[in-house]
């Protein structure tokens, strides 16, 4: 497959599909089928990426590079390492399920919705492939446009507020990153990430660049205290939008930390790791409590996303402390590895949770917990799956949720047992808010007469939730293929961390 520009195909296939959908999709059925075919084709095209990636060698593979802007030495440069491959497959997999999941619920301007989703998929894949900072930034920002439209047109009652907040908030963060990138370009004369990573930078420069990156990525993750756009965006977004947002867009922030902050500003990252770790721990505990008191299901899961993503940032930045202070490279690998597993797992679990809420919402058109109760009595299959995903959400061993959290806590313990103790708090509080949600929605007596008329899952919903369940279970029981895939890439990142640039 080496002769095929596989990464370009992955990026542009959905975008070409989107144009076709817009052009031919006057009939909603055509639009739906065409988008499904496109996403399936993209998923199939992403399999050779996984199969042919040489995980033992690690490093950037499937490299493509064409001159883009000669004057700035910006290239259309693509390449993936194990981390990116995992995220790309997550993207292509989730996109198929999102299209299937939107089959029924989206009835208004179907072709535009499907096209926006496809463009978004292309942009997200582009983010994970880009090895040129300018190209990365273009994808990074461009993906806001389809998401802005998705929330704004097909969202809930307060969609306009939510989508404007989403757009401006995320734009605010990333534009500071742009300044940092221009500064780095001034230093190195090119935009390639590899050149940025090897450029010598003083401590002050690194600190400024680090905080510029932090502004961009922390808002995307989102970390406490810049997370407030997320609950609004999630609540108002249509189900498909929520799934993409939670499952993939949040990962862009974590990916950015690994791809930008760690290699480009290793010394500043180490110096200020405590800031990120502190923010993560606050998110784990405080946001957990906030999730507990929500009466809107989507908001609850949104806050739980913030808390879970805090594990990702914790895992990434704890590894710095481990490398520099304790020279414990193994534990550092564990931390980053755990962060990555947590990202993939959270992609599946949060995607599944939002899909579940979508299933309920389609039946009752309410997201309020108090409107439900006793769903298990009328929808036994759905109830079972919901409970399963909830268990994964609180990190039950045997599900994917456990693996990542466990690895991160284990790594933290080797740095500082107190950090591990606070982080482990999530196991309790996560269980509290998730199980309480299950108790109120799934169990109990049917009190709402409308709930009594619910029908169990239809075939499409089965496909979506069943696929997510299979992924969650597979990753939980046997995460080795995933960790093997990323192992050498993580090792390379950790090795690079040991070198000071100042």
């Amino acid at each position: 497959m080496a002769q095929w520009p596989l990464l370009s195909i992955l990026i542009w296939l959905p975008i070409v599909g989107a144009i076709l959908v817009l052009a031919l999709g006057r009939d909603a059925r055509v639009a739906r089928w065409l988008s499904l075919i496109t996403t399936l084709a993209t998923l199939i095209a992403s399999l050779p990426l996984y199969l042919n990636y040489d995980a033992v060698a690690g490093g950037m593979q499937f490299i493509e590079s064409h001159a883009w802007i000669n004057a700035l030495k910006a290239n259309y440069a693509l390449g993936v390492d194990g981390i990116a491959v995992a995220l790309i497959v997550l993207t292509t997999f989730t996109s198929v399920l999102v299209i299937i999941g939107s089959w029924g619920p989206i009835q208004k301007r179907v072709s535009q919705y499907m096209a926006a989703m496809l463009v978004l998929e292309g942009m997200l894949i582009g983010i994970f492939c880009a090895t040129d900072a300018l190209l990365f930034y273009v994808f990074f920002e461009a993906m806001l446009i389809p998401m802005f439209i998705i929330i704004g047109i097909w969202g809930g009652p307060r969609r306009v507020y939510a989508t404007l907040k989403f757009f401006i908030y995320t734009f605010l963060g990333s534009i500071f990153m742009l300044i940092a990138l221009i500064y780095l370009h001034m230093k190195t004369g090119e935009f390639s990430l590899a050149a940025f990573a090897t450029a010598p930078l003083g401590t002050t420069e690194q600190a400024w660049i680090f905080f510029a990156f932090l502004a961009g990525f922390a808002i995307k993750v989102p970390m406490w205290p810049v997370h407030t756009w997320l609950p609004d965006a999630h609540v108002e977004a249509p189900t498909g939008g929520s799934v993409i947002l939670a499952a993939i867009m949040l990962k862009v922030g974590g990916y950015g930390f690994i791809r930008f902050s760690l290699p480009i500003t290793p010394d500043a990252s180490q110096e200020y790791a405590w800031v990120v770790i502190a923010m993560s721990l606050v998110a784990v505990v405080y946001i957990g409590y906030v999730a507990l008191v929500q009466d809107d299901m989507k908001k609850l899961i949104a806050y739980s996303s913030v808390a879970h993503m805090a594990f990702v940032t914790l895992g990434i930045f704890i590894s710095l402390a481990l490398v520099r202070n304790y020279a414990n490279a193994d534990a550092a690998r564990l931390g980053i590895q755990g962060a990555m597993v947590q990202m993939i797992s959270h992609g599946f679990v949060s995607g599944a949770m939002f899909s579940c809420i979508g299933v309920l919402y389609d039946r009752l058109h309410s997201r309020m917990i108090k409107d439900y109760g006793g769903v298990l009595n009328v929808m036994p299959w759905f109830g079972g799956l919901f409970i399963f995903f909830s268990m994964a959400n609180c990190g039950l061993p045997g599900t994917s949720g456990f693996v990542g959290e466990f690895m991160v806590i284990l790594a933290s313990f080797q740095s500082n047992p107190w950090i591990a103790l606070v982080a482990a708090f999530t196991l309790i509080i996560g269980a509290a808010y998730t199980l309480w949600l299950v108790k109120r929605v799934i169990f109990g007596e049917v009190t709402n007469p409308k709930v009594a008329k619910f029908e169990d899952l239809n075939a499409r919903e089965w496909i979506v939730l069943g696929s997510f369940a299979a992924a969650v279970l597979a990753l939980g029981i046997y995460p080795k293929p995933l960790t093997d895939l990323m192992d050498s890439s993580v090792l390379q990142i950790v090795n690079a961390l040991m070198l000071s640039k100042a």
Partner: protein
Amino acid sequence: MMIPFNPADLIAIQPELVLLGATCAILLIDLFIKPSQRDITHWLSIATLALTSYLVWRGAPELSSGVTAFNGMFLHDGISVVLKQFILLTSGLSLFYARNYMRERSLLVGELYLLVLFATLGMMLLVSAGSLITVYLGLELLALSSYALVAMNRDSASSAEAAIKYFVLGALASGLLLYGMSMIYGATGSLDLAAITGKFGQVEHPGWLAFGLVFLVCGIAFKMGAAPFHMWLPDVYHGAPTAVTVFIGSAPKIAAFGLAYRLLEGGLGPLSGQWTLMLAILAVASLAVGNVLAIAQSNLKRMLAYSTISHVGFMLLGFVGGTPAGYSAAMFYIISYTMTATVAFGMIALLARKGFECEEIDDFKGLNQRSPWYAAIMGIAMFSLAGVPPLFGFFAKLLVLKAAIDAGFLWLAIVAIVFAIIGIYYYLRVVKVMYFDAAAEETALPLPSDVALRWVISINGLALIVLGLAWGPLFDWCNRAFGV
């Protein structure tokens, strides 16, 4: 004194001569045709612009060197070639966007075309100017034509008001410029820009030069519409017929860039240490005033007028370094801005109908339901103005920010992006009304019968994406013009 005349000079000025001759011919032809045959004037004018563009292209010298003609009065170099091409292009675009609008209001008279062509001639002279006289000549030809264009709709009070404001403030700006020029002439004893630069060392009263410089900068800021000399701009954009706003909002901005470049770098380059700081202050003021006041507007034309002020501020970021790379970035910026502004103003003209101006932001409500294609084109223009990749406007912003940072004005770049974030809001508001709000009426939009208009605006809109993905050649072209 005997002024030597070199016939070869005519070759250098050939495009301008052809444009002048053709304009006079069109003036005569238009006298003899019936109003129903005005399309002849329309297509002749377009053809004239196209022919001039071809001649500029064919006569283009080696881009970095260039030739001078008429004893240095007229410069024919790479910079003027690039600027002229885009002046001609945007003038042509605005003629396409104007026809339907003016016809529906019974304003489609031959004067529209003549004034646009004369204004274009003025701009071409201006960007080729090698002496203070030619600068002023080109500028006044542009300005007088523009005043008349704004007053085109004689029966409209707001049009007349806008024209008077434009005229009075424009005359004031011209006065400032002239006064500054006279100081510089007094100090150096020369009108030739190159000679002025050459005599810097031996100036007897350097204070006069600095004094003149201040007046020049004020005059330039007036003409560009940079804050705090921006007062005329919103009223003129708002009051002028939309079809005229398309024109005065686009091509003259390119000419204003040429004006600033010729006078500041061409004539007063050695004083750049002083004027870069003045321009930096103007840039901050424009960014602040433009972006903040645009938020409060409910009229789209006014909003775009304030956004123009902010874009001028952004463009000035390219000037603060006083380096060729910076000018190249500024030129790229102004080209990107005008290409986008023509779409935005053109769309207002396209959607307007007889008795319905479509200039309030709320008039765009639910456009996506009524005409998804034009909503998408307008959306592209808005995102491009906001500077969201992968559209043209983003890369222009990238380049001027880079120019400012390279010049050591990091603080200015940060100020600029802070205001850019504020600016995002009002562009998104237009997208919001088009996409998220329900249309007042559900029926499909009645589209103008002018097929050329629909095609041209679509191509213009799609160009913003294409130039966003492949802006390298255009940037290389700008760089070559400045010898970067």
